[in-house]
């Protein structure tokens, strides 16, 4: 689905952020965090509970205003100050606690994702009320695109079901389809495997690989270390708002700082 032609060549950073800091009152949630995600990567962001992963997500997607930091998307500086602008610039996200439009159908959920890529007079009130030819064509294209995305994530049979009636795993997939509908350059997933059983996790892994193969770049927050290690090309580990390790999954896994963060300091014998 996502067209590879519009993407920059492999190896250029899609998202580059450095000096990122965020404080909540006296608490420093993010302290001089730097990250660089290359095109076509699945990039893992891990860390213990409260490490600042979701805060970092909320900062790069504009939900929280950072106290400092430089942000580059696709080589261009962007200011993560308003959520809808970030989406327009090309970062689409999912949420840790699923946030679908519960009383809308699965298809309509994905159609909402096309909002930001639909412009012109026909997309407004006048087009809708007069039902111009341009409006009809645009609506058909939106519906078509959304249907294809539902197929892509494998839940097209539920197109007409209300989002809230879908199973947990399918809701996660729907959220991904909705995010893909905005044609993001970076797909940011906040714990997409949370609450999934083993089968659903395998399905998710296959889906993320497929999205990667189709040329998308993915930033992934995940608790499931096994999933992250098997899936990600690069990993950053956060602890207490600081980057404690960064690099290839295997190297990060054996890093003493990471082991300490996850398991605690070994008591001296």
């Amino acid at each position, binding site marked *: 689905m996502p067209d590879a032609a519009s993407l920059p060549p492999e190896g250029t950073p899609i998202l580059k952020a450095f000096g990122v800091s965020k404080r909540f009152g006296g608490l420093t949630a993010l302290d001089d965090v730097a990250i660089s995600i290359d095109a076509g990567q699945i990039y893992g962001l891990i860390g213990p509970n409260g490490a600042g992963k979701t805060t970092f997500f909320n900062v790069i*997607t504009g939900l929280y205003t950072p106290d400092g930091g430089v942000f580059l998307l696709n080589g261009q500086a962007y200011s993560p100050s308003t959520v*809808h602008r970030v989406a327009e610039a090309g970062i689409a996200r999912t*949420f840790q606690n699923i946030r*679908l*439009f*519960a009383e809308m159908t699965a298809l309509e959920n994905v159609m*909402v994702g096309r909002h930001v890529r639909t412009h012109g007079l026909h997309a407004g009130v006048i087009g*809708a009320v007069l039902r111009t030819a341009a*409006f009809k064509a645009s609506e058909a294209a939106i519906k078509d695109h959304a249907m294809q995305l539902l197929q892509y994530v494998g839940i097209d049979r539920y197109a007409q079901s209300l989002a809230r009636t879908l199973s947990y795993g399918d809701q996660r997939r729907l959220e991904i389809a909705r995010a893909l509908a*905005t044609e993001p350059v970076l797909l940011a997933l906040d714990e997409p495997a949370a609450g999934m059983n083993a089968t659903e996790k395998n399905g998710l892994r296959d889906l993320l690989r497929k999205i990667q193969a189709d040329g998308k770049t993915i930033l992934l927050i995940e608790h499931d270390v096994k999933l992250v290690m098997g899936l990600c090309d690069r990993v950053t580990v956060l602890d207490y708002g600081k980057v404690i390790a960064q690099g290839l999954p295997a190297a990060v896994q054996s890093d003493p700082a990471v082991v300490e963060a996850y398991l605690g300091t070994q008591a001296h014998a």
Partner: protein
Amino acid sequence: MSLQLPWTRKNAWIGVALLALALLLLPFVAGLFGNAWIRILAFAMLYVMLALGLNIVVGYAGLLDLGYVAFYAVGAYMYALLASPHLFEQFEWIRQTFPDGLHSSIWMVIPLSAALAAVFGVLLGFPVLRLRGDYLAIVTLGFGEIIRIFLNNLNAPINFTNGPQGISKIDPVQIGGISFGRSLDLGFITIPSVQLYYYLFLVLTVVVIVVSVRLQDSRVGRAWMAIREDEIAAKAMGIHTRNVKLLAFAMGASFGGVSGAMFAAFQGFVSPESFVLMESIVIVAMVVLGGMGNVAGVVLGAVLLYAIPEVLRLIAKPLQMAIIGDEVIAPEALRMLLFGLAMVLIMLYRPHGFIGRRHA
């Protein structure tokens, strides 16, 4: 689709044609019992317009507005000021500029009332952008009261609204030389003034219904509903929530403005008393009882909630006289009693309204 065989496009058109015919003939039947009944029908149309306007704000965008009657008031006073001798009598310069007095064409009044109410909708929308639910309800309630109190007090030091006395001698609607203020003699039949208004309101109501339905199924409508369902997720999808919300307030208000202008023309008189909080509450009740976000439900809710109490008011006395031989309960008391009862029953047995949202 094969399961719904009778509901083909052709059959749908036949259904629409029959419904249109029924609505055209309805006032002739109602008229047999007196013009008061046609008047009820005409007012029901005004309330359908109001309820559909509020449905855009409450039903589509999920923003609870308890001061909606303010837009009705804005439309009504706009027409009242532009088509009555009030300003002419108050201001010297108007007497000089318009020596024949202020008379406004309906073709100017309809778009102008929609636009002015939309401006007021945005004025209300701006300060409440960050509010939701109960908080939003309280602020909008305040807004409705502010407008009414302004209308009540803007008679001094400069008399704009004539205060509590209201504005009278408002021109009736005039279309193509036909004045809606008198009955129309077609030779073989005479159509009373109220019936002319009924037809005008019917046409406007149809327009409002078409606009509502078409907006619902569009990019704008989906954006409204996305905000209703989850504002943060809607933002993350790139929806400019501020503009989209303001659009909902403006669109919803514009229907109320048109309805208000029609009300002023129909009554020939407006005063702040017509725009009290209770009116706002009744309109919210129409939307909620009918089925938030569902156009057919809201139309039904508006017609039932307006018409049933009015019908009761008309028949309560004769009915009581016939059965008991005395008037035990005043019609007005009975009306509120049944209104309350209907609300309780519907919320108990049909919490999503007569007709719920599309799929529920």
